[in-house]
């Protein structure tokens, strides 16, 4: 159960080995990797800068992770979120959940991503291929995706 905010890239395989390697109580490991695309809303994107709120972002991620552990029987979990300057094809975010059964691992990973997207203080600024810059707008769909966990 840990969270990290970092500029450096992460290594999916190494993170999974560190979390689950050598354990025989884990039956299911789900990972989500968010990758920067070269287009957004039909616009060609050349780069992106991720800003965050040091001192709030980390505990907010930890709260989201703790909530997932409350809801599902997880043996292990990890959230890694990158900040700084990224280019298309670069990794942005990694979520890993491990449980005895697949349903819990899948549900917890989706929950972490939905909640992270609406609660964790990160802001993306895109540089268009045409040289213009713009702050990415929050997506209404993300708010809806997060809200489905409130009833459950």
């Amino acid at each position, binding site marked *: 159960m840990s969270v990290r905010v970092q500029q450096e890239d992460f290594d999916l395989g190494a993170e999974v080995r560190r979390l689950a390697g050598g354990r025989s109580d884990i039956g299911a490991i789900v990972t989500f990797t968010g990758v920067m695309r070269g287009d957004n809303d039909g616009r060609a994107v050349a780069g992106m800068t*991720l800003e965050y709120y040091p001192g*709030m972002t980390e505990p907010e991620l930890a709260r989201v992770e703790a909530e997932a552990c409350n809801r599902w029987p997880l043996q292990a979990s990890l959230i890694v979120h990158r900040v700084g300057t990224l280019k298309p094809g670069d990794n942005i975010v990694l979520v890993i959940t491990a449980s005895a059964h697949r349903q819990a691992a899948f549900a917890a990973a989706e929950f972490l991503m939905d909640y992270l*997207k609406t609660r964790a*203080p990160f802001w993306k600024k895109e540089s268009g291929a045409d040289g213009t810059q713009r702050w*990415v707008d*929050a997506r209404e769909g993300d708010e809806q995706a997060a809200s489905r966990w409130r009833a459950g």
Partner: protein
Amino acid sequence: MAVTVLYFAWVREKIGKSEERVEFPAGVKTVAEAVAWLKTRGPEYADAFARPDVVRAALDRTHVKPDAKIAGASEIAFFPPVTGG
């Protein structure tokens, strides 16, 4: 009551600074009132908070609603809806 006020993303860019110490008048009790008072400080603030329903706030690094009381907080942050993940 002097508190540290932080601005992020386009709120920071519009106001032109990322951090300042602010002495709020005694009549300013809530986050919404703090926003209304900040808007009177200059056109850059008025622009940043032109749509106060869009700007989010945190008190001492916890998300809060506009009606949250600021008394006792040492840090207030204002920022757009988050776009991580």
